[in-house]
């Protein structure tokens, strides 16, 4: 009985740790830590306006992607 508790705890904590690790690896692959200065200053440029701008940029990209068909 006790053994199962330990096994479950181990399983759960390794699983949670693995999620954190995956998130970290994703961020690393995505280039979020490539520019340490920008990364540290990011908090200054995180206003509502900046977030809107980021969304607009995405929309613009999708739109252009649909229209833009070069050979």
């Amino acid at each position, binding site marked *: 009985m006790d053994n199962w508790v330990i096994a479950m705890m181990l399983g759960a904590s390794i699983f949670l740790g693995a999620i954190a690790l995956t998130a970290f*690896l994703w961020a690393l692959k995505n280039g979020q830590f490539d520019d340490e200065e920008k990364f540290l200053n990011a908090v200054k440029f995180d206003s509502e306006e900046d977030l809107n701008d980021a969304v607009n*940029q995405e929309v613009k990209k999708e739109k252009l992607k649909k229209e833009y068909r*070069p050979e």
Partner: protein
Amino acid sequence: MSNNIACTHCHLEFNEDVMIKDGEHYFCCNGCQGVYHLLNEEGLDSFYEKAGNTKLTPQTSQYEDSSNFNSPAFYDKFVSVDKDGFSKVSLVIEGIHCSACVWLNEKALHKMDGVIEADINFTNNKATILWADNVVKLSQIIDMIRAIGYNAFPYDASVQESYANKERKDYYLRMSVAIFSTMNIMWIAVAQYAGYFSGITQDMKTILNIAEGILATPVLFYSGWVFFRGAYYGIKTKVVNMDILVSTGALLTYIYSIYITLVESGEAYFDSVSMIITFVLIGKFLEVLSKKNAADALDIMGKHIQSEINIIRDNKLISCKLDDIEVGDIVVVSSGEKVLVDGDVIKGNGTFDESSLTGESEPIFKQEGDSLISGTVSIDADVHFRVVKDFKHSTLSTIVTLLESAINKKPKIQQMANKLSEYFSSTILLLSLFTFIGWWLWPHSFETSFMVAVSVIVIACPCALALATPVATLVGLSLGVKKGILFKEAAQLETMAKIDTLVLDKTGTLTVGKPEVIKEHILEEFDKKLLYSMVKNSKHPIAKGILNYLKNKDDSLENIVLDEFTQIAAQGMKASYNNKSFLGGNLSLMNAQNIDIDFKSENSVFYFSIDDKVVAIYELNDQIKDGAKEFIDFILGKNIEVIMLTGDNENSAKRVAKEVGISNYKYEQTPEDKLNFIAKIHDEKKKVVMVGDGVNDVLALASADIGIVMGSGSDIAVDVSDIVLLNDSLKSLSDAFKISKTTFGLIKQNLWISLIYNSITIPLAMAGYVIPLVAAISMSVSSFLVVGNSMRIKYKWSK
């Protein structure tokens, strides 16, 4: 009373009187005013809030026409197309001071139609821009960057960095996984060890084993993949390398541990598996961190050569791709431009700087009929010349070709640790095999003999050996950086310590490389402001030398606007102010104006006359750097042979050599001569350091065992060299020698530590006294010893 006010845009402070008043704002120039209004209109004025009081570069410079950026040749070279069909370019942005600048550039570009992504790296000011080419052109993007007060120029990102960055990132990923898993395995291992000493049920043990096994699997197969790959290449090339040892050790222990877990008896050693991989991976990563990419070097010359030049065809000025230039074409070169193909001058005259090719410090006057060599730079000449060799056969291209072969021919000195690990690895694998056979025949159970054999591999697993070199070199490298010495690759520290010949360039290395005033003869008092304003207008090195001299002597000198100013090629300059005429230049200028002067000197002489009367004479010379003699003495004391090579003439070579105490020197050397000279030294089986600074040294720098370049040297020379001296001083050159010697001594010590440790523990392991658990612990101890020993170098130097 001066009343200084800061410009609203750039925040530089000026007197109120000279500022442009615009409402409640003040601007230092029209440029700043323009940018301010532009940002306001675009709704980007919150930039000023973000920038705070950071001082920016005022927007004053004029730029070349940006439509050049739309030429097909330019697109060919710098613009790539991504999978969605969008164009992509890498730019370096000039004038970025703070994170607000990054924000402003990104915002301004994002607002443009057709720009899809603008990502600017604040640390190195490099930007990647993605845009739809049918909506907006690159020239418009660059115009926008210029309009908001910055400048951008493209660079070829494809070869340069991507490879090194990719490899580094790959290691980050592998290391994150390895460290995460190892740390968690450690916690579980604490329970295992506690159970080992105080009793534990077999069920519990199996649970812990399974958990460890799950964590160890990604470490071995994902993080440890580099070792399996290395082992594969090792087997393919029939070299027993450290990777084979690490991967067999880890793999055998892993398989054994799975077996133990399944049969539910004995001890599993998943912790050893992950620890070996993690430790050795860190050692490998440190090596990667300080490694320069060999592919980099080959692309170097190309990026310094513009792809188009102006030629005249059918009486029209057109720009033409370099490769399309034919013999007989007429090329136009204006002042400040580089000559890219060989030819003969047919129109115009002026002075050219040939120092990058010949090392000659004085500019050379060329006129109709003289030949031009590619690679020279026009100082004040606007000439037309007829091409005599096409680009591929011109001097500049020949140098590029020679450079490529020189880089390939560069001798590879195998690092001591690598050589050692080859013998070491095969010895250990054999010993482990013998141990297994010995125990098996003795007779013991398969399990016991297998375990003892594995313990031999695990205990010998060269963590300390793998860390010995990288840790020591990393300490050496960081020490070098503090002293202004950049080693581009860690391995060079070791190579440098084995050097026995030093080859030096003269101009720019032993000497300052610029003429400096050494004597001033004032024949009649005059207003220094006049001379100051006159020499300020010229780009000639002699004029610059006098300018520096005057400025150092009296920095309150102000520039006055001369009424008239003309340069006379190869002679000097002429000016007038308040109805007085001035002449400044060499003897032939004075003679041409019928001014008699009786003055003799072996240095370069500059005469200054007012209304045809000489009032001052300046003697200039290329001065020897501080501490040059001490440096040569230091090197000779180390039993290193010193040779000076220079493209300059015999007299100046002799003078410098004598003054610093070099007995062995060669003069009037072309770049190829220098290259051959290095090759000759190599033939004598000597290891050579080349120190230089200009394009004329590039071939020699690339082919020498170690090329050291002065930080102020030409870009190409900095690129092909192995060590850069940031402060140009000979003191740091001797520091570089000292650091490499100390570091190499340290590497040797570290290797000894790990070998002694192994020679004690391996016999114990073979005798079966060491279980892998103890092996794992002692492995960490030896690694700490090596790391601790390496740190000593810092204390040694701080004294």
